[in-house]
């Protein structure tokens, strides 16, 4: 346990670290006006929001040559990619190609599946999260997760939010303030402020999912993993969550799995395309990373034939 900054580090901490370790990943907004040639390579205006993105993401989580097994079955092979700080990274691909599997391995939620095993290296701020001295509880506190189906606890709205800070022993001066802040952060406050003591089960699906996001940000993680967070929601609720993700990006790093390509195109800064390939002998379908790039690039000018086919709806 050396210098890895915790999830609660202030922004100064990580800019310090990145500016000494990786000068190329300085905040692009500052670098952009100074160097016109760098602007062409390093800095692009991506997506409708007009954000500047560095060519190379500022690493928060880094996968190097990751294989993931369920018992003898290799579900994912040879994944290497870097998830950038304060970016939204989407993972897309056909069903069963291992998107959820990769996502779960990023905060050690796959530890809960008997027989699941990760080889290769997954680092969080340079620290191997599967290292023998790493506490998975601590990892999950810094890398939170929102699930496919909204899963509020069978408690009041208030207690749903307060649960995380309580169990993790966060020092909280006022729980009421924290609850309000978290609900505001998840754009849910106005809808629930008069019924905080009521059961979370009374909320609509979209509200429940935003409650789950609020509950996640209440423990102040640095990264939020989302596994198809809108797949059980109607288009209006989906749009609200997409807007919310845009807001959350200022404070959090978001990694989202989606099988909805339009969603990836709308919200993500970078997109990783996965697909599954059947092994020669066994016929096991093992997922692999095909292409990872800026979302605009993936959707307008993909480098790989398979990406193009998938984007254009020819398979998957």
């Amino acid at each position, binding site marked *: 346990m050396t210098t890895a900054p915790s999830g609660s580090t202030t922004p100064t901490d990580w800019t310090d670290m990145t500016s000494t370790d990786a000068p190329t990943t300085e905040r692009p907004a500052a670098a952009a006006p100074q160097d016109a040639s760098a602007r062409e390579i390093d800095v692009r205006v991506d997506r409708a929001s007009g954000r500047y993105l560095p060519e190379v993401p500022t690493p928060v989580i880094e996968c190097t040559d990751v294989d993931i097994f369920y018992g003898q079955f290799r579900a994912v092979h040879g994944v290497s990619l870097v998830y950038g700080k304060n970016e939204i990274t989407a993972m897309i691909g056909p069903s069963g190609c291992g998107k959820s599997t990769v996502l779960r391995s990023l905060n050690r939620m796959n530890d809960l599946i*008997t027989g699941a095993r990760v080889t290769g290296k997954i680092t969080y701020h340079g620290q191997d999260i599967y290292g023998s001295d790493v506490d998975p509880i601590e990892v999950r506190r810094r890398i939170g997760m929102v699930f496919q189906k909204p899963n509020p606890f069978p408690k009041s709205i208030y207690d749903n939010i307060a649960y995380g800070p309580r*169990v*993790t022993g966060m020092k909280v001066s006022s729980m009421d303030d924290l609850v309000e802040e978290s609900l505001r952060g998840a754009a849910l406050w106005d809808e629930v402020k008069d019924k905080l003591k009521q059961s979370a089960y009374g909320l609509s699906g979209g509200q429940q999912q935003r409650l789950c996001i609020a509950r996640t940000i209440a423990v102040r993680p640095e990264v939020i993993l989302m596994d198809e967070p809108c797949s059980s929601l109607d288009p209006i609720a989906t749009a609200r969550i997409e807007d919310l993700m845009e807001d959350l990006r200022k404070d959090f790093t978001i990694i989202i799995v989606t099988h909805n390509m339009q969603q990836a195109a709308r919200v993500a800064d970078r997109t990783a395309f996965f697909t599954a390939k059947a092994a020669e002998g066994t016929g096991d379908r093992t997922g692999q990373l095909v292409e990872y790039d800026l979302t605009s690039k993936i959707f307008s000018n993909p480098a790989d034939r398979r990406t193009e086919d998938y984007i254009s709806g020819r398979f998957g």
Partner: protein
Amino acid sequence: MATIGQLATQPIKARKHGAKSPASIAFLVALWCALGFSILCLLTLLITSVMDGLPRLDSNLLTQYTSQIAPERGGARAAIIGSLWVIAATAIMAIPLGIAAAVYLEEFADPRRWYNRLIEVNLQNLAAVPAIVYGLLTAGFALSIGLRRGVVLAGGIALALLILPVIIITAREALRAVPAEIRQGSLALGATPLQTVWRQTLPSAIPGVATGTILALSRALGEAAPLLLLGGLVTIRFDPNGLLSGFTTLPIQIFNWAGRAEADFQQLAAAAIILLLVMLLLMNALAILIRNRYQRQW
């Protein structure tokens, strides 16, 4: 074979597969007969007991000790209090142990380990072991630690052993019914597995656990065999007042009275049976109440 067009023109009301075919009617009749028979048995028991015992359903039954000299004024006081003592001792031992075992097996045990599989298989078998065997086991145990057999503690141990497998199995089912998403949600926030069990899984499972536990305790309340073996048969004329006190229970008292030739004792036995049945019905009603009140659709 009908084409789609033909099918569409046929009336959908015509009952071709309906509940009116002779086979399904015969089956239905058989089911009703089976149900009727069991209710009839129960009613016969209830009615004969009530008719026999009604004259003795008085306050003496609750407040008086059994009497050799004047059975017509005797009561089941020692047995009622003894039953309460033994059931309390049983509950104190069986409930925490049973829930803890269920939590271990359901939430923490790795099913691939051989010892966990061994426990699993044994648990299923233990639930089928005859009650009297637990009495024997406890008698041997009491002997080896120098405990008197016919005391509340020994009775409690025997009954706790008897219902432990039932409590474990029902508690596990209740835990299993709590969706995995709840646990995952808790763990993803950085809660430890222990916190997750303690604050999410177990509270969500409490109604199911409580229902199973009450049903198990009501079984223990009606059990006589292991306690007879432990020597609870003595006619007692004092209130048991501790774990090391001698005791009798309602089933033992009923067994004792019903074995007597005198009509007074027969009446007393019938009255005590009614009392026991009422207690059991109340416990089962409580279990059903809890189940319905807290039933949750996930």
